[in-house]
């Protein structure tokens, strides 16, 4: 398998916002060789170093949309970074410009249903997590 970095983004204290980290947790239990995982609340600039060390990076995050999205993403040097918050595209641009690294990059946007101040996924979120796990498996198997 390609050297792959899976980044799960979100807060475990906001229900389905934890879908990204939950997918990482699920993937980590599989013990896949070549898979490195990270759980973050936000995308911050130092992640560019980990991205640059990977052949493939997959960002997993909760989304407000109804459908799950699995999409290829590219570096976005025009992305705005007015605070400590970065987009996946901006991080890929950092890795490209600073470390000359262009890993294959994907985003899995997992539809969340409820984002209240509570631990644990909603019923809808739990179903979405299973779909996301299948999507992740398909991505990883596509080598």
């Amino acid at each position, binding site marked *: 398998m390609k050297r792959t970095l899976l980044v799960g983004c979100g807060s475990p*204290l906001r229900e389905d916002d934890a879908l990204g980290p939950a997918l990482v947790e699920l993937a980590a239990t599989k013990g896949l060789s070549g898979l490195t995982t990270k*759980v*973050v*609340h*936000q995308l*911050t*600039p*130092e992640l*560019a*170093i980990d991205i640059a060390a990977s052949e493939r990076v997959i960002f997993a995050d909760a989304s407000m949309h109804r459908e799950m999205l699995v999409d290829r993403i590219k570096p976005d*040097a*025009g*992305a*705005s*970074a*007015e*605070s*400590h*918050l970065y987009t996946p595209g*901006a991080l890929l*641009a*950092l890795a490209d*410009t*600073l470390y000359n690294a262009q890993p294959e990059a994907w985003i899995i946007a997992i539809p969340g249903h409820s984002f209240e101040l509570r631990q644990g996924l909603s019923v809808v979120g739990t179903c979405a997590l299973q779909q996301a796990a299948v999507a992740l498996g398909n991505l990883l198997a596509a080598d």
Partner: protein
Amino acid sequence: MSKTVTIDPVTRIEGHAKITIMMNDDGTVDEARLHITQFRGFERICEGRPFYEMPSLMARICGICPVSHLVASAKACDALLAVAVPETGARLRRIMNLAQIVQSHSLSFFHLSAPDLLLGMDASPASRNIMALVSSHPQAAKDGIALRRFGQHIIELLGGKRIHPAWIVPGGVSAPLTQEHRDEILATIPEAMEAVQRTLAWFKPSLKKFREEIGVFANFPTLLMGLVTPSGDLEHYDGRLRFAKPDGTPRMEDVAPERFNEFIGEAVEDWTYLKFPYFLQDGYPDGIYRVGPLARLNMVGRCGTPLADAELEEYRQLSVEERMSSFHYHWARLIEVLYGIERIKEIVSDPDILDTHVRAHAEPNRSEGIGVSEAPRGTLMHHYKIDENGLITWSNLIIATGHNNLAMNKGITQAAKHYISGFDIPEPLLNRVEAVIRTYDPCLSCSTHAFGQMPIRMQMVDSKGMVVKEVSRQ
């Protein structure tokens, strides 16, 4: 008719805020105000919770400086337990606090302020950001990332995760440092050291380009406040609380930090959620003081590590008047980054740091506890009261950004009066007013204990309250 300018949102800060500039009829500036427009109320949220949950709860105030809240909160809980934290436990907490200061200062300097410093205050907003900086100054960007990673990696090694680690607990820390992690920390020191020294080497000569900004970026005498060692040197974890005059000499004898309430009052204004702490002896608003890296370096005797002391000596070639400019927060931040790396190396090099006795256990022995430490942005105070069951009945937090609130407002007024004349205001001048705020690196999520989006905006308003111009950047 007088008018008002509003900058909304203020960008490249940690929080959501708005600047209003009130104009006189003749087009001169009357006053500028920084409005903090978010509210959270953490003090109320924690009422009724067991005291031992407080460090973890308080860390949720902020995703940038959770460690600072962990430290101050755990110290307040230590006071409730009335225990002495084992020496190694205290030193491990100190390492994490310093790692937090290194990563936070690096984010402020490289990611939020370096676009102004390296690309110019007059560059267009579209090209005055970190992504443009990456293309034009890749080494500076790499150094910023390396220093962020240095601090975050140490926090992760010690706490198990980078954000909201639950490792600092009442009575000490929950696990000792392993030899493997000690060696990993030591291995990262040289790269971090090179990065900050390379940064100081380009930053110091660049100051001559900013003479005008240095002159008007909140450049006025104020009191200074922060922790110092018993001998008056730089201190971030413990020590005595000092109130100092602008030249750094103590205004009064240093006091135990737990006595802060005897010297600090908190005023409230109806146009912002952020309170205005002030030095009680001078009253409100005359009791203005500053905290954070600039205040700390202006009032300590020395840093206590060789390279940082050499940099401090060079910094002190500035006159006392020059050192009152908040523009020099940037320089002070870099010296503290250097200090933090040196001090971490010193602490982890001591074999005793691997001692496994790192936590003291006790039941609550007091009903009131105060914890004070130095966060990246300044002195952080947590004050709790509990009932006989150990449940929180009352709490109050005074956050670094709050201490600087009076100075930030006076600072933007000074800059606005200098740069703004008439109602047609070019963006680069508004950027300079914003940049005054950025020198303080305010963390508005912390200081109002609020959550949500982070940006600010600027508005121009006439004497009748009508908005005549608005600049908004999301």
